[in-house]
Structure formats: C-alpha cells, structure tokens
C-alpha cells in the first residue's frame, strides 16, 4: 500500500485483446459492423472464466498480484469492446455508406412461431407477425451510447484495479466483482446494440441483475443486502410494465424489430392503421419501465440506497450507464411519435407524461440533494435530477415531433442525448473522484487508527463510527488531493452548466426548448418548464456545496491531515475524463452534436460554426427564450453557487496551498461572507428532505401493511382451508370409520337383526321395482 508505481507490466495480457480489432480489419478484411457482435460475445466468454477461475484459484498469490483477481482479464475484454466500438464509430462518421440499412447484419431467427388471427368469422394463420430474431442495429444514438458505455466501462474497470484491489475488505472476492462487472458490460453493450425491443429488454434485465449483484457486493452488510433487493424489486416493477408494453407493441406491429417498427410506425400488422389510443398506452407502459430503470419519480427510491455498492459500481452503473437505459428506451420511441416521418399523431399525452415525470423528479431530487451529507448520496440525487432533465427534454422533443415541429423536436432530442453524453462523462468522473476521496480518507483513517492504537492505549475514540463518505468529516482536501479536486471541480461545473463547459451546451438546449414548447405549443408544459428552470439554480447550489464541503474550508477531522493520493490506477482515468469533460463537450457542441444526435435521418456531424452555436445558446432570436437562457445562467452560475459559498465556503487553514487549478475557487468561495443556516437545517422541511420526502417510508409501510400480511394470510389459508379440507375429509373418514365399526357390536343377535333388516329392504326394493 502507499506505493505510487504504476504496474504497467501487468497490462501485458491486454495486448492480445487490443490486437483483435486491427487484425480483423487488416488481416481478415472484416467490415467493422461484422465484428460488432464481438463487443458482446468476448465479455460473455470472459465473465464465467473470471468467476470460475477465480473461485478455483481464490487466494492464490499470482492470481492476486499478477492478474488482480481477474481484473486484468476484465480490462482486456473491455478494451477489445472499446476498440471495436471506436472502429465502428470511425467507420460510421467517416463514411456511413454501408450503414444505411442500420441493421447491417441479417437478424438471426431466435424464436419462430405462427400466430393465428381472426378475419371476419374465419381463423387464419396470420402472415403479418414476424418471428423474434436477434441482430445488430446501429445508428447515431447507438453509437453515442456505445461509446459512452465501452469507454466508461473500460476506464472504470481501470479505476477499479486501483480502488478495489487495494482494499483489504475486498480481498479474495474481487473475482466476483470483475465477473459481475464484465457481465454488466455485456448487458449494457447488448442493450445498445440490440435490433429489437425484446433483446433490448433482455439485456436490460441482465443489467438489472448485475446492478443487484454489485449493490449487494458487500453481502454481509444488512444495508447492502436490503439496498440490492430494493433496487431489483423497484426496477422490476417498471420492467413488468415494460413487458406489457412490449406485448402491446408486438400485437400492434406484429414484430419488435426496429427495422419493422421504425420503417412505418403508422401501419401496423397486415397494413392496419395504428390507433393512437393503444399505441399511447403501449408507449406509456414502456415508459414506466424506463422510469424504473432511470430512477424517476415515483420509482426513484432505489437509487440513493444503491450507493451501498462499491464506488466503481456507483460510478459506472448508477451514474453513467445503466440508468441511461431508460433514456435510451425513450429515444427509441421517437419514430413512433415523429409525425414528420410516418409517425402516429395524437400521442401528446405520452410526451407530456414524460416531460412531467422528468420535471417533478428533477426538482424533487435536487431538493433532497440539498441536505445530504454523504458525498455519494449527493451525487446519486444529482444523477436522478440530471436524468430527469434529459427526460424533460425528451418529453418536449416528443411533443414537438408529435405536432410536426420537427426542427425544434430534433434539436431538443439531440440536446438531450448530448446531455446524456456530458452527464455520463461528468458523473462517471465525479463518482470516481468521490471514490478517490473515500478511498483515501478511509486509508487515512486506518492509518490514524493504527497510530493511535500504537501510541495511546486508552483513548476512547469513536473510530468505529467513522464514516469515510460523510462530508462532515472532510474539508480542506483541495490541498491534499489536487488531481481529485480538479476533476471534481470540472465535473461539477459541467453538471451545473457553467458556460462553455460540456454540460452547459446541452442543458441550455433542454431548458430553452422546454420553455419554447410551453410558450408556443402546449401550456401544460409550464410545470416541467418552471421546475427545470428552478432546478438549474438548485443544481448550482448543491454541487457547489458538495465541492466546498469536501475540498474547501478548514479540515473538519484529524483524518484529513493524513490523506494523500496514492495509486495511479485511480488518477489516470480521472485525468482522462477531466480533459473530456472540459473540452470534449465544447468540441462536440461545435461539431453540432445536438442536431446530429437528434435527427438520425438527415444530419451529419460537421463543423457547425462557433458563432452559430454561441448565438443559439446565448442570443436566440426569440426574446422569451433569451430571457429564459439568461435566467438559467444567472441561477446556475451565480445564485446557487453564491448561496452555497456563503454557507459552506471558506479558505483552507493557513499555511496550506491548494494547487493553482483549484485554489481560485477556494478563494472565491470565501469572498461572499458566511451565513448560519442551522435554524433552517432544523426545520420541518429539512427533516422531510432528510427523510427523502417520506417516499421510502410510505412504500415500506404500504408493503408491511398490505403485502406481507396478505402473503401470510395466503399461506395460512392454504394450510388451513385448502389443505384443511383434505385434512377434514381425512378426519371425518376416521370418525365415520369408528362409528360404522360400532355397528359390529359383537352380538350375533344384532347380526341376525341386521340381516333381517337387509332382507326387508330387499323386499321393499323388489316390490317397489316390480310395481
């Protein structure tokens, strides 16, 4: 521990993986898309290998030191996926000629079957229903998410090598981590590449499983086990509706293939005209699935608890990739809505639902984030809130598209997708940075404890209760962790939407177009519009608060003094992502990413013109929008951060200098004076926010009061009523048996009497019959 050497020689096993893509291209002459399946298949082969080998060689020194308990192989597989993804993206961007069909590889018939249908009074075998196949679908949305997924999986796996393998508590169980990690990657890649809704759902569930497994990684902790269950069940609720949505879609279109569905969504199976009513319901059902997966109101309760998992898991699954699955699903619904190209009119309710859910969640999550002290919880609520932004944007976009305002629609959808990209990069980095903080604080704490145990025997310290994630134990870390502090600063800026940094471009677009939708098209959009605008300011507040509490001000515990950044496995990904966050967003914005991502039919990624971009962001023609834009900036850049500074800002302790990249911010934060908010912190509102607005309690109580007793009642009913009937028959027969045996009294006289009775009965019967 504590060495800062990067063990480059360990990466040798990765080289063959990296060589696969080039050799396929240059030696075997494959097209990039032909290799797309390898993105999924190679990890699919790797994950059981890691698990099984790890279980067998558990504790082996070479396995631990040289192969990092399987992490190296995981990294290798992910690097292969990444390289092929980049290859495909390159091909797509440079010459998209052979991608026109999207589904370039012929789908494989997975399940074949017949469907019969009723025509008039006849039943016939229907020709309109297609088999369920599996294939690869590639368009701009796919590629954007594919890049995000492969890239972040790779980086975070890298990060994990530093984060997981240096912690004693993970020893001998890291193979489990890497195995499940790679399995998750399969799910994510597969979902993005799938060419139909069923396979999308299949991989979606795989991700859910991995999310469950990884949240419960520390299985012995009650809280982790509970959180894992909660996450799985909550998303499961959504998934069930998603399944129902799939059934409805299949019934309408006779297929779940994108190629069939997107080709002409207005005609269903056998050329029937698609009614908007049923489709509306189908889409809403699908959307409930997305709500569950992306932790939106009211299925949001699982995400904060999911932070029980190891930090790389939070970074990857619960911030950067899996939670985007819901967004991806909604984006996939665009063709249904897009009346410009064969869409079905009359789906405004669906669009509004999306926007409203997004708005409510954005505001609610931001509000709860105000009072969180756990650094990861803050980020979790922030994730929720930012995802909600994207939903709002998508909702607005869907609304535009459904009333044939396709320019605005494409733009805002593009902006949303772009925000997804920015958010994924920034939030992944933020989580990794927080992981870095937690990791080092934890180690420092261990260090301090060792010292105190060495030197003072009787000191009753509260080490057992020390929480390395609690920001109230931090402060002033800017000096101790320069790389981390910088990365965190850049990430926060991107999330807040500081102009010119990545997130700004996309967030601006979302808020502006939501307002545009409200003002020009649909008054009901007012609520989400107002909420997202308010949230912009709130985002400024809580992100700044988090940074300041962690890095600025005087240290709040003795542990801080022992913190320092150690392993390069952690630092390297942070630096890479910092660069991307700082510059990538800007660069992509200049290339017109929003248009490109929004309109897969027409746009091309091209130099878009700096001035156009800037003008659109800062000086839109519409004066209302101009007002909205500037208000956003004001709220996010000024009001939120300034209030945060007044409460939490402050200089470091004397004699300590932060690195120049962040010191300005520390200085700035101390300039706005200070404010005591303890009264507010004790208020009922703060209490309610602390209790997460009582949603979790509500669900708990509802379950404990209804489902559990009902289940117990069912079990009782089964054992005592249904089985009771059987038992009753049994005991009644026994009673009857005893009774009937009494008739055999043992007295021959009675026997003769019985015989006489029998004789007379026979007479009676014979007499009755013969007459």
């Amino acid at each position, binding site marked *: 521990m504590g060495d800062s050497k990067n063990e480059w020689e360990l990466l040798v096993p990765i080289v063959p993986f990296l060589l696969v893509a080039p050799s396929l291209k240059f030696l075997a002459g494959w097209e990039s898309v032909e290799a797309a399946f390898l993105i999924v298949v190679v990890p699919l082969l790797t994950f059981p290998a890691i698990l099984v080998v790890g279980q067998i060689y558990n504790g082996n020194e070479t396995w631990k030191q040289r192969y990092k308990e399987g992490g190296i192989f995981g990294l290798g597989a992910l690097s292969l996926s990444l390289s092929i993804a980049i290859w495909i993206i390159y091909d797509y961007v440079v010459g998209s000629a052979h991608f026109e069909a999207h589904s370039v590889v012929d789908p494989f018939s997975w399940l074949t079957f017949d469907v019969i249908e009723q025509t008039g009074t006849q039943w016939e075998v229907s020709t309109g229903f297609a088999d369920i196949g599996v294939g690869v679908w590639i368009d701009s949305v796919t590629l954007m998410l594919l890049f995000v997924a492969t890239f972040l999986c790779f980086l975070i796996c890298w990060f994990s090598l530093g984060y997981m393998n240096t912690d004693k508590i993970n020893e001998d169980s890291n193979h489990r981590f890497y195995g499940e990690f790679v399995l998750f990657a399969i799910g994510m890649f597969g979902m993005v590449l799938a060419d139909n809704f069923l396979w999308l759902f299949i991989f979606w569930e795989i991700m859910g499983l991995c999310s469950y497994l990884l949240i419960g990684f520390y299985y012995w902790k009650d809280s982790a086990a509970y959180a894992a269950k909660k996450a799985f069940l909550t998303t499961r609720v959504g998934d069930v509706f998603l399944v129902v949505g799939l059934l409805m879609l299949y019934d309408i279109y006779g297929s779940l293939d994108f190629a069939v569905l997107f080709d002409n969504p207005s005609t269903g199976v056998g050329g029937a005209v698609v009614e908007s009513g049923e489709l509306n319901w189908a889409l809403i059902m699908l959307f409930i699935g997305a709500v569950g997966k992306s932790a939106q109101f009211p299925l949001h309760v699982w995400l904060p608890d999911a932070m029980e998992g190891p930090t790389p898991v939070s970074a990857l699954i619960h911030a950067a990739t899996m939670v985007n699955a819901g967004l991806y699903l909604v984006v996939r619904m665009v063709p249904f809505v897009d009346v410009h190209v064969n869409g079905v009119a009359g789906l405004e309710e669906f669009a509004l639902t999306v926007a409203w859910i997004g708005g409510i969640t954005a505001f609610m999550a931001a509000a709860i984030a105000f009072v969180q002290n756990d650094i990861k919880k803050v980020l979790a609520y922030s994730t929720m809130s930012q995802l909600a932004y994207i939903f709002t944007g998508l909702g607005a976009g869907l609304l535009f598209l459904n009333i044939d305002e396709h320019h605005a629609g494409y733009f805002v959808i593009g902006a949303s997708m772009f925000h997804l990209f920015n958010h994924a990069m920034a939030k992944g980095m933020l989580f990794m940075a927080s992981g870095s903080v937690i990791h080092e604080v934890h180690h420092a704490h261990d260090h301090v404890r060792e010292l105190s145990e060495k030197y003072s025997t009787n000191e009753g310290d509260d080490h057992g209760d020390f929480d390395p994630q609690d920001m109230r134990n931090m402060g002033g870390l800017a000096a101790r962790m320069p790389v981390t502090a910088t990365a965190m600063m850049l990430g926060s800026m991107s999330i807040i939407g500081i102009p010119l940094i990545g997130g700004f471009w996309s967030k601006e677009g979302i808020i502006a177009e939501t307002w545009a939708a409200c003002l020009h098209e649909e008054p009901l959009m007012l609520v989400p519009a107002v909420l997202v605008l308010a949230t912009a300011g709130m985002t400024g507040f809580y992100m700044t608060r988090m940074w300041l509490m962690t890095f600025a001000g005087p240290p709040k515990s003795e542990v801080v003094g022992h913190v320092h950044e150690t392993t390069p496995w952690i630092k390297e990904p942070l630096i890479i992502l910092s660069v991307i966050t700082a510059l990538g967003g800007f660069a992509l914005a200049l290339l017109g990413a929003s248009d490109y991502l929004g309109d897969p039919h027409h746009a091309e990624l091209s130099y878009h013109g700096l001035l156009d971009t800037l003008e659109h962001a800062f000086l839109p023609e519409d004066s209302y929008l101009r007002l909205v834009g500037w208000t956003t900036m004001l709220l996010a850049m000024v009001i939120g951060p300034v209030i945060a500074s007044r409460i939490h800002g402050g200089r470091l302790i004397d004699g300590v200098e932060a690195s120049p990249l962040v010191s300005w911010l520390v200085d700035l934060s101390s300039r706005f004076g200070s404010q005591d908010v303890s009264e507010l912190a004790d208020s009922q509102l703060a209490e309610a926010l602390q209790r997460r607005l009582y949603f979790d309690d509500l669900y708990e109580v509802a379950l404990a009061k209804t489902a559990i007793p009902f289940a117990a009642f069912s079990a009782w009913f089964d054992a005592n009523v249904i089985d009771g009937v059987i038992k009753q028959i049994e005991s009644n027969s026994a009673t009857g048996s005893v009774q009937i045996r*009494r008739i055999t009294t043992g007295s*021959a006289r009675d026997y003769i009497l019985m015989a006489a009775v029998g004789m007379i009965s026979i007479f009676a019967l014979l007499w009755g019959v013969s007459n």
Partner: protein
Amino acid sequence: MIEASWIAGLGVILFSIGLLGAFTRKNAIVVLMCIEVMLNAANLNFVAGASHYSDVDGWVFTAIAIAIAAAEVAIGLAILLSLYSTQETISLEEANLLRN
C-alpha cells in the same frame, strides 16, 4: 285334501316365527331351534309344491332338507360346546369378544 296354499300359509307363519325368534332370543340353542322352524317352513312348502304339482322332486327335497337340518344341528351343537368350553356361555350377547 288341504289346498297347497293353506300349507304354504302355515309355512309363512312358521317362517315368521322362526325369523322373529332368531333375532329376539339370546340363547343359542333357542336360535338353533328357530332355524329348524324356518327350515320346516321350507319343507312344508316343498311338500305343498310336491302335492300341488304331483312332482316327486318335492318329496326328495324335503327329505334332503331334513338331513341338512340334522347336520346343521349336529354341527351347531358341537360349535356351541366348543364355545362353552372357552367362554362358559352360550348366550349370543355375551359371547362378544370379537367386535368392531
């Protein structure tokens, strides 16, 4: 000559007496006697039939039936002796070790 039906009527009465006695009396010997009465009722019928139809068979049947009755009584008494030697009773009610 007495009508066959009169004889048969007597048979009915005898039979009823026998049957009634068989399930009202406790003493096994009495029951045995009742059985004899019932058999005799049957014999009367055979005799009546034989005379009515002028058929020899009826007489033969009667003779054989009497023989059967004799055998029955012999066996019955033997069994009752055997019962008496173990349980010291020939009451139908008291010999009830076997029941239920």
